[in-house]
């Protein structure tokens, strides 16, 4: 499915849900607690940058706003977010989103705008307590705005559904790393996108069917157990004991970056005829690996505290831990997952991406992994050049030479 088709499909689903009377709450940050939103009977829908949107932000945002928030804001100005009944913005993650929420609120006072503020840095238990309270406040705000109180039973169902989804996609990630031919990267990316657009049982059903097929393929090669072990190792962030088969197809590419959309990247790479379908084996993207490998919230205890622990246990978010831990994990991943090349995506005017990428490149070169830097925007406005860069990067990996 192409990016445009995926957008159309999620709009169709949202429209149907709206017709059924379900309020849709849009969100933009990967670690938004879907389970809390669902516990209020609302449908959380990830708001994606729309590559076809016309820029209509100039009256409210300067040109140095990051490409993602320009795109989001333009969608709102152009009335391209018709099914969304409210938006939750994150607080304390990046300066652009922090300010966008304020601007949105002032420009569109009739919109329901919520802000959920996250702790930054590695603050331990104090952060859990702080964030649990923020979640409680957020939940109260949802109840006030929509008149639907938090339901324990619905929360448990939501936790269960989200966990089924995550654990199945985690398995696919591990399978892709061990046997890249078992599942295409764009298929994983499509599931991530579909579920985040509308976390519905039907997506999980479809995912289960795919996992079954993949399991068959892995069973034939006797790799079910090693896939599960790798899934566990990724969750635990302990990769030193990972052992990979010796006959892995090369090159093996990983993609890293912040809010770059996995499906969009997958589509970009797929469009390059010379790229082998087994090449992209791993990502460290926010709406990919980082969101999927979030620990499951406990069923027992205070739901807000349990959710806070889960969200703050997510891996590798710039807001939640310092750079050294992220670099250590990248180094481990590149080394133990036998990565040959790293594509470093940078959204234009994105502080988190642009600050991090020099360090990512340094780490990769320290462990002898070749890199290419890809400045992207949601519109992929210079698509031909991006494809050219990826293609020549792959050629250097295959034939040697300078990257």
């Amino acid at each position: 499915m192409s990016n445009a088709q995926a957008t159309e499909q999620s709009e169709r689903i949202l429209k149907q849900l709206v017709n059924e009377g379900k309020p849709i709450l849009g969100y933009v940050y990967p670690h938004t607690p879907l389970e809390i939103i669902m516990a209020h009977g609302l449908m959380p829908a990830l708001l994606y940058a729309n590559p076809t949107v016309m820029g209509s932000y100039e009256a409210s945002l300067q040109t140095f706003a990051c490409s993602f928030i320009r795109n989001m804001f333009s969608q709102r100005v152009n009335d391209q977010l018709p099914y969304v009944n409210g938006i939750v913005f994150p607080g304390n993650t990046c300066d652009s989103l922090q300010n966008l929420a304020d601007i949105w609120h002032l420009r569109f006072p009739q919109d329901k705008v919520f802000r959920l503020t996250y702790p930054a840095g590695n603050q331990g238990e104090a952060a859990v307590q702080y964030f649990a309270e923020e979640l409680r406040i957020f939940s109260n705000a949802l109840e006030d705005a929509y008149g639907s109180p938090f339901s324990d039973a619905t929360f448990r169902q939501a936790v269960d559904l989200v966990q089924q989804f995550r654990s199945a996609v985690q398995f696919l990630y591990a399978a892709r790393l061990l046997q890249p031919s078992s599942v295409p990267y764009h298929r994983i990316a499509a599931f991530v996108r579909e579920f985040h657009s509308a976390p519905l049982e039907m997506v999980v059903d479809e995912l289960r069917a795919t996992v079954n097929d993949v399991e068959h393929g892995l069973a034939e090669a006797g790799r079910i157990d090693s896939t599960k072990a790798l899934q566990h190792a990724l969750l635990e962030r302990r990769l030193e004991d990972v052992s990979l088969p010796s006959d892995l197809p090369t090159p093996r590419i990983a993609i890293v970056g912040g809010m770059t959309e996995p499906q969009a990247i997958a589509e970009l790479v797929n469009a390059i005829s010379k790229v082998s379908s087994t090449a992209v084996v791993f990502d460290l993207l926010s709406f990919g690996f980082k969101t999927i490998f979030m620990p499951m919230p406990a069923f027992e205890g205070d739901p807000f505290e349990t959710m806070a622990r889960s969200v703050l246990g997510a891996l590798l978010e710039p807001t939640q831990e310092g750079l050294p831990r992220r670099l250590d994990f990248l180094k481990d991943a590149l080394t133990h997952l036998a990565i040959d090349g790293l594509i470093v995506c940078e959204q234009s005017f994105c502080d988190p991406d642009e600050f991090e990428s020099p360090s990512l490149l340094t780490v990769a070169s320290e462990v002898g992994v070749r890199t290419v830097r890809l400045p992207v925007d949601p519109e992929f406005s210079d698509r031909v050049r991006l494809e050219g860069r990826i293609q020549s990067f792959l050629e250097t990996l295959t034939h040697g030479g300078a990257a």
Partner: protein
Amino acid sequence: MSEKVKEEKAYRVLESHNFLQRVMFRYMLEGHAASEEGKLAWVTSGFPVEIPVAMDVGVSYPEQYGAIVGSEKAGPKLCEYAEELGYSQELCSYARASIGSVKHPEESPLEGLPAPQALLACNNICGTVLRWYDAISQMTGAPVFLLDTPPLEGEQMPHHIAYVRHGLDNLVSFLSKQFGTTLEEDKFRKVTDLSTETIGIWTQCLEACKNKPSPLNCADRFLAMAPVVAIRGRDYTLEYYQTLLNEVNDRVANGLGAIRDEKVRLLWDNIPPWFRVFRIMGSLAKRGVVFPADTYTHAWTGSIKGEDRMDSIASMYSNVYLNKGLEAKVDKMCNLIKNYDLDGFVMFSVRSCKRYSLGQLVSKELVSERTGVPGVVIEGDMVDSRLQNDAQIETRLDALLEMLL
């Protein structure tokens, strides 16, 4: 003869300026000495510096150094060094200048800041500081301590205070471990008292600008703010501000303005373009334009008081200007315009500072609507002159002044 030339300038130079230079020189020497002893921390401008100061840890301010880099017109060169390391030109130019100066101290004004043994970041001004200090840590090996003060919407809630308070306790442990020092209650009280008194006198200097003519222009304040940003909690800083206040009060008593012929009173919003600010202010002064208030220098206000100084710090440092929403910024600007009887405002949109700048297009409309005075947005940068188009700025300022003069 030289007296006569001075008399003819549109701008009155502050006598206390020499004192300011001595204070800043001493601060620089103290920084070098602390670094040599292995006891220097770099701190962000909104960091509760009273704690490291009370624990005998020396401090240096990369943002203040950024202002020096800008004024010395070394911004493009140092920023380019950071860009050579892969840091995008779109990133905060204070950060780029500091990364560039760490890479090439020999090419930097004052040969760069003295080497740090710790990096203390507080994100009450922006989220950029954490990433910037992470980058410096990669280059210098100094560990980063982040004091997290999540942005506030409305009143600070008890769980927010408790969280920040916990961060302050962690800070004390971090400094104790890193520098083998302790926080003694007596010294802490003395430093916080000095800091509060200093901020109090600084606030009086700012408020004196409600007078007509205004005794200070914003370029005066941009210079005079350096110690209140960088050296709060020292007796010599307090002495400097006392001297400044005396001079300001003299000016008010004698009806002397910062500029000789005050016709138009404006508000300045945001960090100034350090490499051009005196030229811009000088040429506006000739046309009778003064800036009695600005949002930047008014950001260092508040007081640390009460029995529990840590709680007071948790509250004061969470409530700084940049840690509040756009609505609070609009309120602040409207209040300044009203209280200082201003005729209009200039918003400097700093290309590389998103936190301060994104939203200015909306706040400009709101401030004009609420106060009835006109404003203009001009775009540029505080350090990197490559990001600024002077001709465009001039045209926009002319358009504003046409409405007012």
